[in-house]
């Protein structure tokens, strides 16, 4: 199946998988390394992709994906288009809290080629949180990695009492206020 589905595979014990989709590979790499450096109590596997759909030949080897983070670079309109094209290959039930948008490059607004309005609308349409960060700075990268890790823990069901959907709506409600 070309579409990524949230529940078509069995979960593995005490582990979680995050998929980073974005056109800038070096930045993905750096973020993945930052996530791996964090202290965590479960096994984590990070998959990097430049676009969806994922190649189907290795589909049976891939674990269940708990969180998809789409990375948009505000300096490149191409990355926004890439993400928009990839969103078509994600199953609708993923958007119940298991998808988030990472917008990077917001530190230098003089370079922006993407309208922030467009990104915000994307988050609204797909009911997913939009996290603004500047991944080229070390400190913010570490902070973003921590946030993603926390979200991943919730999305993979390792925190009792909170589901991905309730957490997603919590973020969106607090962002609206």
């Amino acid at each position: 199946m070309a579409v990524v589905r949230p529940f078509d595979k069995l979960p593995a014990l005490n582990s979680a998988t995050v998929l980073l989709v974005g056109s800038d590979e070096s930045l993905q790499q750096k973020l993945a390394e930052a996530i791996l450096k964090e202290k965590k109590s479960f096994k984590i596997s990070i998959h990097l992709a430049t676009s969806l759909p994922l190649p189907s030949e290795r589909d049976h080897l891939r674990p269940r994906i708990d969180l998809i983070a789409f990375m948009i670079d505000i300096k490149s309109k191409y990355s926004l288009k890439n993400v928009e094209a990839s969103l078509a290959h994600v199953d609708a039930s993923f958007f119940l809290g298991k998808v988030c948008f990472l917008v990077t490059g917001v530190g230098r607004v003089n370079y922006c080629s993407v309208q922030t309005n467009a990104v915000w609308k994307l988050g609204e349409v797909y009911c997913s949180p939009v996290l603004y960060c500047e991944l080229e700075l070390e400190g913010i990268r570490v902070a973003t990695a921590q946030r993603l890790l926390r979200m991943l823990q919730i999305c993979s069901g390792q925190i009792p009492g909170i589901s991905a959907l309730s957490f997603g709506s919590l973020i969106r409600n607090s962002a609206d206020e």
Partner: protein
Amino acid sequence: MSRRRGEASTPRKRNKKGQEKASTRRFRPRQTWPPGAVPRRRGGSREGDSNGAWRAAAPRSGSVMESEAAARTLPSAGRLSGAARRSRGPLFGRAHGRFGQGSAGGPLPPCSQENADPQKTAFLLRKQWTLYSVTPLYRFSSANLKEYARLLGAFIAAEKQKGLAVEVGVDLDIKVTFSSLPDLRGSDQDQAAMLVQLSSRSSVSPKNSEEKLMWSGWFCCVSGDDLSENVPEDFTCLPLFLANGAESYVAIVGSWFQKTFDCRFCRLAISPLNLTWMAAMWTGCKVEKNASATELVFSVPCLPQPLDISYAIHPEDAKALWDTVQKTPGEITQEEVDLFMDCLYSHFHRHFKIHLSATKLVKVSTAIASAHCDGIIKFLQSKYLIGVLMLLTELAISQIQ
């Protein structure tokens, strides 16, 4: 390159109104005007009165489309000339709100202004102006211009005495003149533009040598109602400052103004998003036959050697493309600008397999004006001077607020 010849420069199927005609080399919009007929579009300005109509005429000159021949890739060993400038100032919120309204219309393309006297403003054209945004000036009065000139002259002389000499060698007497340019304003509510000129005369033989203009800078405000309505009394709004000449003089003059009128100068950078707006708007303006090509310069990031790509489009073809994209005359939306740029990018991608949307747009030059993302502008036509100033004033105001 032989590959480019024979291929029609037509946009992809994304463009709703364009037709693909691979056999001919010209781009034809679907609403082909009958030859000679000129549809009139009335343009209203934001103030409510109509400053004039501009025409959308189909190109019938029979010139070969230059976009294939002119689209060239320039690998350059260095960055763009004059690019070593610091970029300042976030350009959020307001600029996007104004320039990029989703459904509501954005600002208009520059209309021809019959009031501006081309003779008086001719000296502003074809010079490179560096842009700054200025916060409102406190207790500035346009009646005291001579006094200000005297004070500024004294200040510059004092700076030179202090040893902050700007030019080593010949000792120059610097004369300062302040003058007013009453034509450069959008409406009567705007403050009249003010020009500061520094001219030098060699102090060795003051009688014989001529005065040479060394540096000029001017403040202006065109349709700056949003700012001027909200400031208290005693404040004068002249949010845009343009300077031409040595940067050291900008620092000196700027510090004098900052001390005297408690304002603040800030370098105004233009983001690529705003540059695309300018490209779209200026392409839509009618220009005479031998207009220069519309040129977009992109800088490719993340390469070991910096690469600049220059994409030149024949102005009539660019205008024809824009005319099919723009639906409502007098209104421009963000979607139309995006569509226009997407057509250009996809055309380039088809020929060169390079995604220009992943690069950074650094410079836009059309027949009307040319703008660089570091905040450098060059006016090329006095007819559209006021319109371009209106855009720049908006950018300056959004940076101040």
